[in-house]
């Protein structure tokens, strides 16, 4: 769970400096905090994105959660060459692990067929319905770092200043990590709320540490006992046997003979134990 999302954002986005009309449009859009989607009647993004994004996306399943939905902007100009499309494609491929590309392909396919105001409405609706819309915002914030013109897609009624953006990013990361922990720690449910989850995690870690201590005490006791009975290498033999037994068990389990095979193996190994 390293943050290589930060690394991926340092990639340049050369295709964003397309034309001056685009810039004016984006400036207008930035003034308007509500969602927008530019018309892409000239572009056939849908043919490119399914090819490039979806397989790289699905191969890199990750809990990164950063999105790039606002990344795509579609140009009105039909004179824009195909070159930006290709660089867009490569940019997409570089920025892997973005789950929101599904939304992108959806939105781009939706865009190409409708006019501009309708598109913006559906865009807003789609953004608000996806329940991950706020991540789109945070993603744009990261992408503003390369100082290209990036479209900021804010949810309705959400602040767009840098502090709250950073806060949102942080909270998103923390939620993601808590979700991972929830899978690991038994008895942890998202419905319990974060404070309770943290309490559960604390209890679990404490119990694991206590178990480790207790078992090392058991090892000490075993070794003292064996020492006492002056079987000096009995401990190693015992440990080695246990290790072999455990490995046998695992091998059998892997081969699929869990129930009876494991038990049979145990019996056989114990009968020919050297002690």
């Amino acid at each position, binding site marked *: *769970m390293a943050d290589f999302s930060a690394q991926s954002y340092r990639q340049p986005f050369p295709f964003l400096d397309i034309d001056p009309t685009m810039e004016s449009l984006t400036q207008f859009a930035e003034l308007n905090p509500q969602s927008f989607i530019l018309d892409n009647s000239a572009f056939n993004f849908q043919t490119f994105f399914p090819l490039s994004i979806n397989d790289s996306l699905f191969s890199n399943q990750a809990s990164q959660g950063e999105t790039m939905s606002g990344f795509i902007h579609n140009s009105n100009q039909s004179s824009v060459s195909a070159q930006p499309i290709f660089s867009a494609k490569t940019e997409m491929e570089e920025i892997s692990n973005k789950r929101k590309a599904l939304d992108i392909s959806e939105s781009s396919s939706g865009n190409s067929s409708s006019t501009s105001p309708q598109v913006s409405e559906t865009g807003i609706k789609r953004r608000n319905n996806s329940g991950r819309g706020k991540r789109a915002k945070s993603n744009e914030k990261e992408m503003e770092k390369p100082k290209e013109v990036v479209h900021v897609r804010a949810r309705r009624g959400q602040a767009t200043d840098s502090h709250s953006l950073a*806060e949102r990013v*942080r*909270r998103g*990361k*923390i939620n993601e*990590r*808590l979700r*991972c*922990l929830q899978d*690991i*720690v038994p008895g942890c449910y998202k419905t319990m709320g*974060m*404070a309770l989850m*943290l*309490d559960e*995690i*604390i209890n*679990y*870690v*404490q119990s*694991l*540490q206590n*178990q*480790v*201590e207790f*078992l*090392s*005490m*058991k*090892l*000490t*006791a*075993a*070794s*003292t006992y064996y*020492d*006492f009975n002056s079987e*000096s290498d009995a*401990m*190693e033999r*015992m*440990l080695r046997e*246990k*290790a*072999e*037994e*455990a*490995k*046998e068990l*695992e*091998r059998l389990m892997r081969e699929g003979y869990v129930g009876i095979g494991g038990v049979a193996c145990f019996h056989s190994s114990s009968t020919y134990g050297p002690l």
Partner: protein
Amino acid sequence: MNNPHHLNPTSLKSRFTTRFLRALTKIRAQKPISSSSPTEIFRRYRRIKVAADKSMAYSVRSRRIWSRAMLWKLRSRSYRRQDPCSGRRSGKTNQAIMKKSSNENTTTRREDGVGFVEEADELRQLVPGGETMNLCNLLDETAHYIKCLTTQLFSPIGKG
């Protein structure tokens, strides 16, 4: 597979097991226990526990903050025991850094803006090296730490 008795020879579990076994045999070879006095037993218990922690930390090396913190703790403790002066000399910079960061954290109450400060502090005490982490990294390290603890417990060395 040419060796059916081993899982992945480079997995965390096998690394830990081999190291821990080696440490245990060393401990047993060192000191055939003469008396069964409680202090002796306790000393051996401490040694075994330290061996478990050490082999775990060495299996993870410096990839994780908690393993680095644990290794540093173990090293400073062993230096201090051997030679009080050398401990002060070598561990000084590290100690200064750790002290400074922990002081900063205790004085600036880590209000991460998410509102789980008490639980987060408790978690920080549990996970080695947790005092110097922000909440995000702390959760990360906790997950890895839990994974390593369970590896320890379920390793083939009669521990699980």
